[in-house]
């Protein structure tokens, strides 16, 4: 974790002057609240935190915080975040985005970010849709979601992000619900504190294109079992749950990637000097 703040900052101190333009009722508002509360609780200075995002409604979050922000290209939040963390291991690096950005366009990056186990936290605000481009099905959309844009549904099995993350080597895997901001905040705090690659799927309703998701608040429930350090047990559990179990599923003990152990990329090449400011 990065250096602590000398004075206690409030959650609102981490919000930028840029007001969010998400639709009223969007779950992402509460994710922003949870994230700022988590950073404030950890006492991190804004200049010691980097928020990296891709493209999409939820990826706008990097602009709504006054920490370092990088609004990258579609699906590339994770390689950017990895690069920042490797170059500046003193920073707390958080990647954020949506299900389309993270599981489709950026899907392959997710696999390898889990595998590399660099000490970053990845937050995916999952609303099972591409909201910014007017409601196309995403990798987590149910196959029978019948709309004008996908008549009869896609018929394609949805992606299971938590299972994929576990199988790929993520060191911390959790699911949260935006309608439970305090619970989500606590999960984010634990994700940031846990060494290695932490993956948090946050169910975040899109009330505009998926008004049915307003009902998620009645469907989420605490997990029936406690957090495990056994990845295969965690995977079995998540493969058989109803998708609405919230809580920390898995905490592993795999050693995170350390640049000092694995060599310094660019050292001696002069590349690092070229980017000095």
């Amino acid at each position, binding site marked *: 974790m990065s250096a602590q703040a000398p004075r206690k900052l409030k959650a609102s101190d981490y919000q930028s002057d840029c007001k969010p333009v998400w639709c*009223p009722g969007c779950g992402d508002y509460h994710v922003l609240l949870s994230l700022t509360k988590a950073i404030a609780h950890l006492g991190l200075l804004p200049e010691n935190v980097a928020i990296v995002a891709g493209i999409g409604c939820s990826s706008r979050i990097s602009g709504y915080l006054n920490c370092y922000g990088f609004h990258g290209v579609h699906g590339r939040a994770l390689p950017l975040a990895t690069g920042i963390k490797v170059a500046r291991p003193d920073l707390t690096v958080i990647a954020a985005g949506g299900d389309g950005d993270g599981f489709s366009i950026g899907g392959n990056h997710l696999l390898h970010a889990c595998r590399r186990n660099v000490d970053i936290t990845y937050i995916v605000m999952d609303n099972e849709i591409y909201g910014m481009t007017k*409601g196309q099905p995403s990798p987590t959309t149910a196959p029978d979601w019948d709309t004008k844009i996908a008549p009869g549904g896609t018929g394609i099995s949805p992606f299971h992000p938590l299972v994929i993350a576990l199988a790929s080597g993520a060191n911390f895997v959790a699911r949260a619900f935006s309608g439970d901001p305090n619970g989500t905040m606590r999960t984010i705090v634990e994700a940031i504190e846990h060494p290695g690659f932490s993956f948090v799927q946050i169910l975040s*309703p899109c009330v*505009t*294109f998926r008004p049915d998701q307003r009902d998620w608040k009645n469907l989420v429930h605490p997990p029936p079992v406690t957090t495990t350090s056994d990845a295969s047990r965690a995977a079995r559990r998540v493969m058989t749950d109803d998708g609405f179990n919230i809580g920390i599923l898995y905490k592993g003990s795999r050693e995170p990637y350390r640049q000092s152990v694995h060599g310094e990329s660019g050292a001696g090449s002069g590349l690092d000097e070229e980017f000095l400011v």
Partner: protein
Amino acid sequence: MKSTPEDLASQPLSLEELLAHALAIESEAVQSYEDLAAQMRQCDNTEVADLFDRMAKLEAEHAAKLKEEAKDVEVPELAPWEFRWLGLEAPENIDLAGVHYLMTPYHALKLALTNETAAMAFFEAAAAGCVDERARALAIEFADDERQHVKWMQDWLAKYPPPDEDWDYDPDPPAALG
């Protein structure tokens, strides 16, 4: 931590804890209403935006009063999960599922009424459990304040009849939904 009124009776809040809860309720309410006002203004729903701004002002005045009450008390900084709300969140936290870009003043006031009622219930439960005399007196006072807010919301609401059933009809809908 989610509590019940019985929990607050068996493990009463101290004066310091009560003030920490009260200040959290009001400061979160101010931010929630300000955020909602900004969201509505962005959707050109000016009437509801103005209403949320007025609610934010009301809560800010209440927060200032609470700060005055707490000036001689060392109020502890509690982590969000250390608060002992009757629900998952502070009672005046907005339930986003009740927010819509075409919502009317009626809906906004209903939302506020729900929150004020929840805050009143929290302070009533806290007052019933408080052992410390000053804490009990303050909890009763805070519950009375919230009761007054409930009354204001009800009076305000009486001026706005429920909207037509198709209040959320949008001739140019944002969704390509069937």
